[in-house]
């Protein structure tokens, strides 16, 4: 059972019902649940979207797109049905926040989905969970059934003449399906290959209808935004970055865990105070700030870094999924880079050649390099390959593979050079990986 952690600097908004039995619908209601949905039903779509815009809530999946604006792009009148799609295909290495949301607060996901549906005028929402999260899917299914039994979902939600239905859906193992258009393909019973954009999902989405797709954390935040008021929620965070974020701190720290901290909270404090510093008194080598696709940061780069979309972007990386991976000085960066690229090579859907071939060649080069058979030219070649993947694919997976690789090579070039000319890896013992 995943352990819950706590720190005095936390501002518990999304996590405030964690560990309190809120998977039970009556308990959820005792804790204020479903009041936000009722309020939204009374206030109507324009009011909801204004509150969402005022909240400065930005998409928690990684791209950080303003949620209120996303919802406002959906046409009011549509000949085709409109849909809400909740992305719970959480698969970015370093990220396990949605795991806790589904486990501890499934009704917040349902309530947020209802509110999104009311905002865009949709009658049907989907909650898609990765296939590995079967026990969480069962929790969600139970929660959805309970919400139907109370009349919160169905033809006449909360006794009104408004209809809203929810279908839960299981994936079957695919990182790529976390990309929004691939997610729609999977939900339509196809291979999870992305679609060409435009048209964007808000106009032509699931089954060709206008579709809003939000990350599970974003959706679980929505009822809290409504309950607090958009402006009050925005005030918790930093400029243009409303509220809090669930930071999953993993790797070489004393107290790994998911911590809810205000947007803009200092990354160095996350590592040293909140998560208790580097494990075993070792020194910090690097931090991956927002899941495995975000470029690595050096200890000096985290000193004054506030964790919001804009500040991390300015520092040359990304806030991404909020998965902070801490790396100590006994870790081989070449091995870390190899493990990262192996993942993207495994998950590339193969549609775009720069991604399919690029990830494969990067994996081959790094495997050879880490085994001690690299040449000086390989370092430049790895960089050249990665640079030529950037921006040349239909979906962000190609970038997600290239960006961290570039970060490792640029910031740890010396460590790559230390592997040259048959020298054994100074750190690692694993040179072979089973995943091919």
């Amino acid at each position, binding site marked *: 059972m*995943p*352990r819950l*952690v706590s720190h005095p600097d936390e501002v518990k908004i999304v996590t405030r019902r964690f560990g309190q039995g809120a998977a039970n619908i009556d308990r959820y209601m005792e804790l204020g649940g479903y009041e936000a949905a009722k309020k939204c039903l009374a206030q109507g779509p324009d009011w909801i979207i204004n509150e969402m815009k005022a909240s400065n809530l930005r998409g928690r999946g990684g791209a950080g797109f303003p949620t209120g604006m996303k919802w406002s792009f959906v046409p009011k009148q549509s000949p085709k*049905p409109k849909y809400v799609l909740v992305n719970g295909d*959480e*698969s970015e*290495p*370093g*990220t*396990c926040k*949605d*795991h806790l949301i589904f486990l501890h607060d499934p009704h917040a996901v349902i309530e947020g989905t209802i509110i999104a549906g009311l905002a865009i005028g949709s009658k*049907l929402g989907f909650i898609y969970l*990765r*296939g*590995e*999260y*079967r*026990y969480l899917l069962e929790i969600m299914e139970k929660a959805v059934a309970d919400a139907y039994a109370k009349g919160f979902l169905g033809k006449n939600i909360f006794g009104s003449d408004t209809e809203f239905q929810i*279908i839960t*859906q*299981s*994936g*079957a*193992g*695919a*990182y790529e399906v976390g990309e929004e258009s691939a997610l729609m393909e*999977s939900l*339509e*019973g*196809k*291979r*999870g*290959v992305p679609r060409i954009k435009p048209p964007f999902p808000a106009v032509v989405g699931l*089954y060709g209808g206008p579709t809003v797709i939000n990350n599970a954390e974003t959706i679980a935040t929505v009822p809290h935004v409504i309950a607090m008021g958009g402006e009050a929620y925005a005030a918790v965070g930093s400029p243009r970055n409303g509220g809090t974020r669930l930071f*999953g*701190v*993993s*790797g*070489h720290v004393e107290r*790994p*865990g*998911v911590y809810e901290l205000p947007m803009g909270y200092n990354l160095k404090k996350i590592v040293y105070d909140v998560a208790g510093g580097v494990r075993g008194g070792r020194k910090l080598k690097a931090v*991956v700030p927002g899941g*495995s696709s975000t470029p690595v940061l050096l200890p000096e780069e985290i000193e004054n870094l506030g964790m919001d979309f804009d500040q991390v972007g300015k520092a040359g990386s990304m806030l991404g999924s909020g*998965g902070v*991976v*801490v790396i*100590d000085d006994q870790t081989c960066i070449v091995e*870390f880079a190899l*493990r*990262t690229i192996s*993942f993207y090579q*495994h*998950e590339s*859907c193969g549609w775009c050649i720069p991604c399919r071939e690029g990830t494969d060649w990067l994996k081959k080069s790094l495997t050879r390099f880490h085994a001690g058979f690299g040449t000086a030219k390989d370092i430049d070649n790895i960089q050249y390959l990665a640079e030529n993947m950037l921006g040349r694919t239909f979906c962000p997976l190609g970038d997600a593979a290239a960006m961290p690789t570039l970060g490792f090579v640029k910031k740890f070039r010396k460590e790559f050079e230390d592997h040259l000319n048959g020298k054994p890896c100074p750190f690692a013992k*694993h040179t072979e*990986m*089973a*995943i091919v």
Partner: protein
Amino acid sequence: MSSETMTIFSPQLAARFDALVAKYPVRRSALVPMLLYAQDEVGYLSDAVIAEVAVRIGITELDVRNVATYYSMLRFKPAGRFNVQVCTNISCMLRGGYDLFDRFQDELGIGHKGVTQDGLFSLEEVECIGACCWAPAIQVNYDFHDDLTPDHVPAILDQYRAKAQSEGKAAHA
């Protein structure tokens, strides 16, 4: 095909499929979860499973295979009764995921994608399973085990051996 005739699935699973396909705006949306649920019951996507799913959805077998081969949890040959999936992605790797994987290999005498002779266990190195903050973590079928060291391995395996034994006894009772 109605759920009463010519099915290789249990009545429960057949009923679940009938409910599932009726739920969506488009029947085919049930395909991916349906394949996974069928695999849970049958053990893998046999030719017979693929044929039946194709008929139930109303698409060709080729189309089913085309989709099924995309998803890494779906398999086309049997795994062990308990499929041990060890995550070695970055967060788990940093906290000893490979040591854990090595220990499972030693204890079971099989490697990646191997199956023990008695068919009880299979072993896989897998990508991130979403338990990064409780690393290193594994899944045995759908059960998570987290915050592990290699020394936990024998007890985990014993736990599933005992489970197999008690389930076996129950089946013969």
